[in-house]
């Protein structure tokens, strides 16, 4: 685990007069000997090691597999003919290549929105039925996403964003990553643009660094012990935005797709290791 002492000035400022003056009177800038010797991270590492195996997300994968292969909905069809981008029924490696452009719906979809498309077209459900209670622990949609993601185990993330709309969304996603708003002035970049940072003791991936981005993106969906539930990347992003004290973006909305296209692009080449287990 990378670790830095907590002495750096928060944001590097390039050559501004103001910045220079301010650095001189910055009250928090000095290195403190106190607090530096407190290193609880070894203790936390042992905790994580002891939880490495036997991930309760395996229960979600089992439920997801049953949902994939069981006839459901008004048409009593399974999802086994669902095209996740690699052809009907091809599930292995599909997650690692999402989000992507789907010509049949003429838009870029992530795994959740693609599954909803399959549930509506193949099984005859309404979108409301397909997404009902999806944020509840153990929801059908989260179980399905976990099952599909598990079928990309070891497959490198491959979201080059070459289709024009994918490329547009990647660019939009980058702007959104840096877009500060709300009563705490937060953007994704506030917490996720530097190496070795933590909120309390939780490590924060730096999505400007491909290696760090891979470490994060390859391990979602993940069982979150604090929630006793598997969370998908959409769910993770919605909650980050809630914690930024901004309103909830809608499920499947372009904002969530754009952020995911950009994040996956940053993480390209990382071998999928989902489902993960996180705090």
């Amino acid at each position: 685990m990378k670790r830095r002492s907590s002495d750096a000035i928060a944001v590097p400022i390039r050559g501004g007069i103001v910045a220079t003056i301010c650095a001189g009177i910055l009250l928090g800038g000095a290195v403190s000997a106190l607090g530096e010797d407190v290193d609880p991270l070894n203790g936390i590492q042992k905790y994580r090691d002891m939880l490495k195996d036997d991930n309760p997300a395996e229960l979600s994968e089992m439920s997801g597999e049953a949902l994939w292969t069981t006839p459901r909905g008004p048409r009593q069809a399974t999802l086994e003919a669902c095209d996740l981008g690699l052809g009907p029924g091809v599930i292995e490696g599909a997650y690692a290549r999402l989000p992507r452009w789907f010509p049949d719906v003429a838009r870029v979809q992530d795994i959740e929105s693609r599954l909803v498309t399959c549930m509506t077209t193949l099984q005859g459900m309404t979108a409301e039925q397909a997404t009902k209670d999806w944020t509840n622990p153990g929801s059908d949609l989260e179980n399905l996403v976990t099952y599909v993601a598990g079928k990309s185990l070891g497959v490198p993330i491959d979201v080059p964003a070459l289709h024009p709309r994918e490329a547009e969304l990647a660019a939009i996603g980058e702007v959104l990553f840096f877009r500060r708003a709300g009563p705490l002035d937060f953007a994704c970049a506030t917490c996720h643009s530097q190496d070795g940072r933590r909120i309390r003791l939780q490590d924060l991936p730096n999505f400007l660094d491909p290696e760090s981005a891979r470490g994060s993106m390859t391990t979602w969906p993940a069982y979150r012990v604090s929630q006793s539930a598997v969370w998908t990347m959409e769910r993770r992003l919605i909650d980050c935005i809630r914690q930024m004290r901004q309103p909830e973006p809608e499920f499947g909305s372009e904002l969530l797709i754009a952020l995911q296209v950009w994040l996956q692009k940053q993480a390209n080449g990382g071998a999928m290791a989902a489902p993960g287990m996180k705090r």
Partner: protein
Amino acid sequence: MGKPMKIRARAAGELVEVKVLMAHPMESGRRKDAAGELIPAHYIRTVEATCAERVVLTAQWGTAISANPFLGFKFKGGAKGDKVRITWVDSEGDSRSDETTVV
């Protein structure tokens, strides 16, 4: 009926090592939902493990076992091909029983 468990039973020498994940909310009765209402207690109280009809472990649990419980233990006298069965009963009288083959 609860959801299926995930059971692994592996023979290593004279031992069989068993690892179980159970799908259960293990509600303590002290948590509140988004509306501020207490969520009623709902938790597994007893677990029994058998191998070829012989009891190899029993457990009594309270509300402090984590949600989606994990249990690992080892016993002697089992062999590849034996059936290991895990059964739980919860505080609402609901139960679940699943088995796997020792590999």
